[in-house]
């Protein structure tokens, strides 16, 4: 509202004393002098002249060019597809062919990139697989013909002793008839063996890791000399400090005479 007051009072260029009886006229004529045209030598002089709102003569040319007949229209025909070089050709008739070409180029590039990406990923995933020397030791074959009935063979497998026991008919009968209620770690004999004649277990006592002695102990299976754990002929804990049965590794029978462990 008061924004325009300054323009209204701008005419009064003198401070009026209240005691004065003469009322100065708002339109008092004053001698107008045209300031000399400033010389814009530097940015500073230009800015200071602008800020003081002195007369600034426009220096920009305002001429408008109206005649364009001498302009050459650029020729883009080198960049156009053949099907649209004719100015009267309809875009709709051929855009599928042109787009198909573009997408085929894209598809070829993506196919190549996918092949490369798959190769890289494959390489990194394969680096997580076990090395060939580890794989070679991971599984062993056991010739079962060399183990007579009633004997226990100890074989080194993955740095641990492996017990392969050829059980007698008496032992098989005894283990199969054992009631689960008698066992500390109840497991049926059929769960622990694939063929009743062959018991395959990791020969490490589940108490503190000693290697038990075969065909010893109160149950005739295994006996751990360290702290006196008794195992039966199915490797199940029957007496002593060991908490669980001896571990059964993954194994399978390749044929009647060969066992593959691991």
């Amino acid at each position, binding site marked *: 509202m008061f924004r325009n007051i300054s323009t209204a009072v701008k005419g009064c260029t003198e401070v009026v004393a209240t005691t004065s009886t003469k009322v100065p006229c708002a339109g008092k004529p004053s001698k107008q002098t045209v300031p000399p045209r400033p010389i814009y030598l530097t940015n500073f002089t230009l800015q200071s002249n602008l800020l003081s709102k002195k007369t600034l003569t426009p220096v920009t040319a305002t001429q408008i060019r109206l005649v364009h007949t001498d302009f050459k229209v650029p020729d883009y025909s080198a960049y156009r597809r053949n099907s649209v070089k004719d100015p009267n050709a309809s875009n709709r008739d051929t855009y*599928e*062919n042109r*787009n*198909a070409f573009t*997408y*085929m180029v894209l*598809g070829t590039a*993506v*196919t*190549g990139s*996918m*092949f490369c990406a*798959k190769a890289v990923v494959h390489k990194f995933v394969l680096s997580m697989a076990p090395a060939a020397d580890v794989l070679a030791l991971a599984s062993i074959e056991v010739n079962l013909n060399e183990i007579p009935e009633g004997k226990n063979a100890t074989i080194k497998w993955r740095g641990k002793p492996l017990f392969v026991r050829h059980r007698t008919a008496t032992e098989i009968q005894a283990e199969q008839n054992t009631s689960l209620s008698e066992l500390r770690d109840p497991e049926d004999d059929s769960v622990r063996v694939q063929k009743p004649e062959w018991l395959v277990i990791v020969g490490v006592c589940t108490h503190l890791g000693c290697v038990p002695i075969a065909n010893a102990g109160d149950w005739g299976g295994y006996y751990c000399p360290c702290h006196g754990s008794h195992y039966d002929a199915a490797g199940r804990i029957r007496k002593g400090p060991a908490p669980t049965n001896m571990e059964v590794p993954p194994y399978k029978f390749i044929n009647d005479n060969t066992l593959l462990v691991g």
Partner: protein
Amino acid sequence: MSITKVFYQTILRRPSRFFVVVAVGSLFFERTLDIGIESLYDRINRGKQWKDIADKYA
């Protein structure tokens, strides 16, 4: 030309189908490249590899 149009309308225009075709195509591409380079290697090294002389020994 009409084959191109059908191909464009059915496969290329839909990104889902497009990428399925590209993925399957890359499998075929990989297999083709493998076989091609393998056969080239065998042709260059003809007579030098074990499979070339294995019938003399085994």
